[in-house]
């Protein structure tokens, strides 16, 4: 309470908090006693109380009528209402984690697909390049392969090879076949 000069100067005026307590119905007995004798405090309280009560009364009346009207538009049988699933914090985090995993997987798959496409494109580009199917290059490669096979044949025909149980005849037959028919390295 704050001091003041009036016919109740032995008292002091009520603070805003004390007046609020009166409005809230939780005022201490000495506050009520002060209001009974202090006209300025009573006047201050009455002004605000009147203003607040008018506002609250209008608000309560209108809002209740509004919610009653709105309530009447909702189904009365609440048993048909399906309760909203309760989203707890762990559930939300689990959901978020699942989303992140799904997104990662989708990205990974997408990258793999893109890489595959790139390889295929590269292969196609290689095949379609002028050097890819070059007749001179093929002939040269075939000749070199045949020379290598012939060298192997000659090595296999040596007595050292026979000592290790390598069949000379079979190899010779293969050798004959291979030397007769050119090796098909590519189509």
């Amino acid at each position, binding site marked *: 309470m704050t001091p003041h000069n009036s016919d109740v100067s032995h008292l002091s005026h009520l603070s805003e908090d004390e007046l609020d307590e009166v409005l*809230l119905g939780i005022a201490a007995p000495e506050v009520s006693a002060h209001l009974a004798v202090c006209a300025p405090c009573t006047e201050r309280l009455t002004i605000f109380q009147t*203003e607040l009560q008018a*506002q609250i009364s209008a608000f309560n*009346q209108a*809002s209740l009528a509004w919610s009653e009207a709105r309530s009447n538009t909702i189904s009365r049988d609440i048993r048909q*209402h399906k309760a909203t699933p*309760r989203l707890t914090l762990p559930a939300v985090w689990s959901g978020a984690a699942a989303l992140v995993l799904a997104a990662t997987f989708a990205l990974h798959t997408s990258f793999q697909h893109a890489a595959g496409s790139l390889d295929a494109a590269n292969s196609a580009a290689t095949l379609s390049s002028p050097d890819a199917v070059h007749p001179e290059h093929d002939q040269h490669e075939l000749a070199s392969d045949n020379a290598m096979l012939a060298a192997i044949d000659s090595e296999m025909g040596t007595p050292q090879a026979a000592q290790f149980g390598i069949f000379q005849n079979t190899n010779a037959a293969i050798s004959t076949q291979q030397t007769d028919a050119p090796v098909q390295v590519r189509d």
Partner: protein
Amino acid sequence: MRTYPSSCVALEWPLGTEGRVISELDDIDLLVKTYRARLLRFVTFSTGDPDLAETITQDCLLKAYNARESFRGDSSINTWLTSIAVNLIRDHQRTQKFKFWKQAKATAVDVTDVASFIATDHSSQEQQLIAKEQVARLSGIIETISQNQRTVFLMKFSDEMDLADISEAMGMPINTVKTHLHRALKAVRSQLGAQP
């Protein structure tokens, strides 16, 4: 034998069972009829979202009906229902934190619509206009204060609950409730421009 809480009411019952005492919680239609409009108002102005308020109100009544056996009658049914509604609102607000596309304004309370429900009987056009203005003004102020302040303010001044019931419904100490009420009242007072 089952004992009934103080909130039990004697109802007219057909087929020779007149005077049978049943709890309001046992009669789902009575529960809806008695409490839904009040709950809907509380949740609407507490959340500021009428569509969400409808869902929460229905959830609340259904939850109360399903859990009616656990109601001990220590508090009134209204306080019990309000505490369920408060918890449902809190649950919703926790999940709302993850909503980046919050669309509060899209479903905000239409204050003009609410104000249009002012009773038109026994009052002049001027009085009705003043009342509508008052509704719009207080609704606007309520919207600006914090969630806890708004909730306790509505409980105290709209639902006329006493502090002990507010404390129980909010699950907070009575002194905390007092603090929220003081702050709410201070904000309302300063925005109304009325100084005590």
